[in-house]
């Protein structure tokens, strides 16, 4: 009948059960050096990054389709019933550029903060096995709260977008005023929704740090979210560029 292979053996010295024992870092294999049974965070990180890349493809497709609709609509003439001719009815939107530039800067800084948060926790995760050696101290304090900074700045961006929408309304551009204004609201709102999702995940990452989840597990979450965050920044640059240069 079927022959099953024997389980793949991982070449690591087992120095006792439970946490807290002295163990050397892992070499090769898939293990993380703590012996069979504990999760392989390296593989988990790889898998989540892969999943993120795949997921971002679908987000890209949403914005590709919206872009296509935008560009085509901008160039599309519409039939004027009375004169029986085709006329272009695209009204460029009077964008509050200064406000949007401020928001862009906020998001840029938040992206920098997110990257610093990512590197910070990567270092903490790498040093975790050493920290578990009794009597060893690395002399580091809690470190600058880069994660919290990202959340605050991201929230600031969303507030700034809200103010920008109010400004647009004051200038007479509401959602249904013109095709161009509809797209401005649609593109920026869709981005904002995705950004808000990122903020929720960051809040979750901050919250679990209070629940004493292993730093390696938290690192995976923060790493992947930081990459998502960078994508959201680049996406915003793209949308801003589209709305400005393809007015």
């Amino acid at each position, binding site marked *: 009948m079927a022959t099953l292979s024997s389980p793949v053996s991982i070449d690591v010295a087992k120095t006792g059960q439970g946490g807290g024992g002295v163990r050397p870092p892992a070499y090769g294999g898939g293990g993380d050096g703590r012996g069979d049974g504990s999760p392989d965070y390296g593989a988990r990180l790889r898998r989540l990054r892969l999943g993120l890349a795949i997921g971002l493809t679908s987000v890209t497709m949403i914005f590709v389709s919206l872009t296509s609709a935008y560009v085509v609509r901008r160039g599309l003439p*519409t*039939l004027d*019933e*009375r*004169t*029986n001719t085709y006329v272009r009815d695209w009204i460029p939107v009077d964008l509050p550029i200064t406000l949007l530039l401020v928001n862009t800067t906020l998001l840029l800084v938040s992206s920098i903060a997110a990257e610093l948060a990512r590197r910070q926790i990567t270092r903490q995760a790498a040093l975790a096995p050493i920290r578990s050696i009794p009597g060893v101290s690395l002399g580091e304090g809690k470190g600058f709260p880069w994660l919290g900074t990202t959340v605050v700045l991201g929230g600031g961006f969303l507030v700034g977008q809200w103010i920008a929408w109010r400004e647009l309304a004051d200038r007479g551009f509401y959602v249904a005023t013109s095709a161009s204004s509809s797209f401005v609201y649609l593109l920026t709102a869709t981005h904002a929704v995705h950004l808000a999702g990122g903020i929720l995940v960051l809040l979750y990452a901050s919250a679990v740090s209070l629940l004493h989840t292993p730093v390696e597990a938290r690192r995976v979450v923060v790493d992947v979210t930081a990459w998502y965050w960078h994508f959201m920044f680049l996406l915003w640059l793209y949308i801003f560029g589209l709305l400005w240069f393809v007015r």
Partner: protein
Amino acid sequence: MGLALLAIIWLITFVSTYFFVAQTWWLPHGASTSTPWIDHQFALTYVLMGIVFVAAQGALGLFVWQYRDRGSASKVTYSHGNTRMEVVWTALTAILFIGLNLMGSPIWASERFAPADADSVPVEVTGMQFAWYFRYPGPDGKFGRTDPKLMDPSAGNEAALGLDTTDPAAKDDVVTGTMYLPVNRQVNLTLRAVDVIHSFFVPQMRFKQDAVPGLAIHMHFTPTEVGDYEIACAELCGLGHYKMHGMLKVVSQEDFDKWLVTKEAEKQ
């Protein structure tokens, strides 16, 4: 079971093919200049596809019976395939499909790439929930202005289209619910829709085109036989879609002119 499968598959194939060959239910009699071309391309396609259909189903039925497990008498021919055969039948299929398509392209081009002739009869066809209206520009040859604000479907004809009678060009426009065309002359259609997408479908003219709100679509065809031809709506437009039909009457040039004169007179 192998024999039963062969019998069922071959029977289904035979019956299906029979009704195609016998043309028991077929394309209605065509009466336009495009009919011979379209019908020829149709025939070419269905003969070629028919051959493939019979061959494929026939082979399927045959193989499941021929290669049934007969116990120790059966021997499997272990093989992962045959690359040369793959290349050959892929190439043949590509040539068949693409060739067929390219053969039909000149017909499409002549129907749709070229604008209407200069001496064609201009008719504007407007679809709305749930009727077709036909507008003739009258002696001035110009379609007058329509205004959405003036549209009143319950009043029919001119009012349904919102014809703006203050426009001089509109004064001689004739709007009817029945389409009249002179035989052997090309008609220059302008297709419009007032509310949702409709589709102007005259099976016997081998003609179909969606009428889209916000667009004025120009198309043409040439009827070749005098007669009455039913018009059906061919794009779901609401609860009355099934009864949004009209009638095309193709008459001699004389009768057409007479009819138009009568209609103009009625407007006074």
